[in-house]
């Protein structure tokens, strides 16, 4: 398996452009999808956003200078596209936080995963009530186990800001639990 750098150079030199791009997609598609899906819940929306992210990558990859890691750039685009989508949903009034709990339960009935307990539903609600940026930072840190430097580059903040976001998220989860 070629490294990201090798695949990007092949792409930029138009050497088997589609093949090198496909390899890049296959390397990173799962993480990109997970990052988006944790925020938007619906598979079709996540699929749409993921495709938009990769189309942007295809259009801009020729100009990518490899000053940062490819994955950081990729996740940064995914982060921005997801936030844009959520903002658009809010403007259109299609996002309904009250239906999210119902969606969560419906989802569990459609998949092979075991049904959620009450505490698991509370965890879902607790994370959902966090501001979007804090949700992102928390999930990137906890589930993807990324360091704060990478999280800061992805979310366009400082390392200190990213750390603060994570700890504030944990604090708000604690408050949420106390109040429910």
């Amino acid at each position: 398996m070629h490294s990201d750098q090798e695949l990007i150079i092949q792409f930029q030199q138009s050497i088997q452009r589609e093949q090198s791009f496909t390899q890049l997609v296959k390397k990173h598609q799962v993480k990109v999808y997970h990052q988006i899906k944790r925020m938007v819940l619906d598979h079709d929306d996540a699929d749409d956003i993921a495709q938009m992210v990769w189309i942007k990558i295809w259009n801009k990859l020729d100009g990518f200078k490899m000053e940062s890691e490819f994955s950081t750039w990729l996740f940064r685009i995914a982060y921005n596209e997801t936030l844009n989508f959520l903002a658009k949903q809010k403007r259109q009034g299609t996002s309904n936080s009250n239906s999210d709990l119902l969606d969560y339960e419906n989802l569990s009935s459609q998949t092979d995963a075991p049904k959620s307990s009450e505490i698991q539903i509370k965890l879902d609600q607790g994370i959902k009530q966090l501001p979007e940026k804090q949700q992102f930072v928390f999930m990137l840190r906890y589930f993807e186990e990324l360091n704060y430097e990478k999280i800061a580059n992805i979310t366009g903040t400082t390392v200190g800001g990213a750390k603060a976001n994570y700890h504030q998220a944990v604090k708000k989860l604690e408050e949420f639990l106390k109040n429910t």
Partner: protein
Amino acid sequence: METNNENIELNKDKLAAEQLFAKEDFAHFNLKKTEAPKDYFDTFSDKLLDRISKNKPSVFYLTTYGKMAIAAIFIFVIASTFIFLNTQPKIKSELAVISIQDISNEEIESYVNANEWIAEMDWQTESVKLESENSSILKDTID
């Protein structure tokens, strides 16, 4: 050493969250949230490339030299306009000077003679006006 410190910090952060919810709860949350339909990832790249090939617009690549060329044209247009506008009055005044210089003395005299009666008429009108103004001023003054 740095990686070790990072791992220690990561574990601390995760522990802080796991004091609120169990590790299994987080794992369950992640599983539910990230689940994808069967074979989704197997076909994703093909579907993506298909969409990219259908959406391919006609591409105009602007290289560094292309950008520099456009900037140069822009500067040229601005500079030309500036130079053109700055030389315009001089040309006009030169033209005016030339045209006066081109007229002979005979022509000038004949023009003046032809228009003398107008000049006289105007003078007469003006002189009448002046007299009436003076008389009104005298009337206003009190001896």
